[in-house]
């Protein structure tokens, strides 16, 4: 999808969040001198196209007690990787799930699944659930815990420098 300048203005205006009023799209329209129905129609088109995944609330995992997360990684036989990846991604405690290339010999793993829990013990228990689901198709696995955030910058919109 190619975004035009008005689409980009809408995304930029809402990048830090929707205005908290009962009619947020009307308010965005006021900011940008656009009618509410145009704001809604453009956002709906971007959502239908996948540019906007959803308009939603992002819980703070840590504040809500999900303090532990681990990046679990799995070496899955390529012939089963897509089907099994879809099953792993559907688990309620998996927040991201991707197939990626291996980097042999340093890195034999091709399935990445981020696991969340209240403690590392809970993350380990969830890793065992994933292992049970994958069965013998998983030839090896590991889990990497993050110890520090070294950098986290907001995503820049392409074309805005």
């Amino acid at each position, binding site marked *: 999808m190619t975004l035009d300048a008005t689409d980009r203005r809408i995304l930029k205006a809402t990048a830090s969040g929707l205005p908290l009023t009962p009619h947020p799209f009307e308010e965005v329209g006021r900011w940008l001198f656009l009618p509410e129905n145009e704001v809604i129609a453009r956002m709906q088109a971007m959502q239908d196209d996948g540019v906007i995944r959803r308009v939603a609330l992002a819980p703070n995992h840590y504040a809500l007690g999900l303090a532990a997360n681990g990046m679990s990684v799995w070496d899955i036989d390529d012939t089963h990787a897509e089907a099994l990846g879809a099953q792993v991604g559907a688990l309620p405690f998996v927040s991201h799930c991707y197939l990626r290339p291996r980097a042999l010999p340093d890195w034999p793993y091709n399935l990445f699944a981020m696991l969340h829990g209240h403690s590392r013990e809970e993350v380990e228990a969830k890793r065992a659930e994933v292992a049970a689901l994958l069965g013998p198709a998983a030839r090896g696995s590991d889990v990497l815990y993050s110890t520090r955030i070294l950098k986290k910058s907001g995503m820049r919109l*392409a074309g805005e420098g």
Partner: protein
Amino acid sequence: MRSTLPAEALDATDRLLINRLQDGLPLTHAPFGPVAAEAGIPEADIVARIAHLREIGAITRFGPFLDAEAMGGAFCLCAMAVPPARFDEVMTLVNAHPEVAHNYERLHRLNMWFVLACERPEEIAEAAARIEGETGLTVLRFPKLKEFFIGFRVEA
């Protein structure tokens, strides 16, 4: 904020909002109507509660979630095995690149994991090569081959 809120910080209505509004809001004139009806409170109170949840740090944001790739641009997860004695020096070199969007230290021989975000796919290899030149370390690249649909929701 990495600390947990006390259980009494949220009441049943707050928990309902967190659980329901993760899934997405209808794009309509009155998007809070359905959840207000379910909670049995006015839409203005829903909005006030969302503001309060943000103030106390129970939620990090409320708004559109974008698919960066659908908007154009290229992304790649990268990893390096950084000798512990050089960790801070290498971190400074890596973080100085504007293409580095996130960078995490992880417990593994591959101990530095970062995401390169560029406008064009060929810039990923260029940025990785620059980092290799500056640090003398190999940058392993793990581009996404396939992303799976996610059922993840945080139960409040």
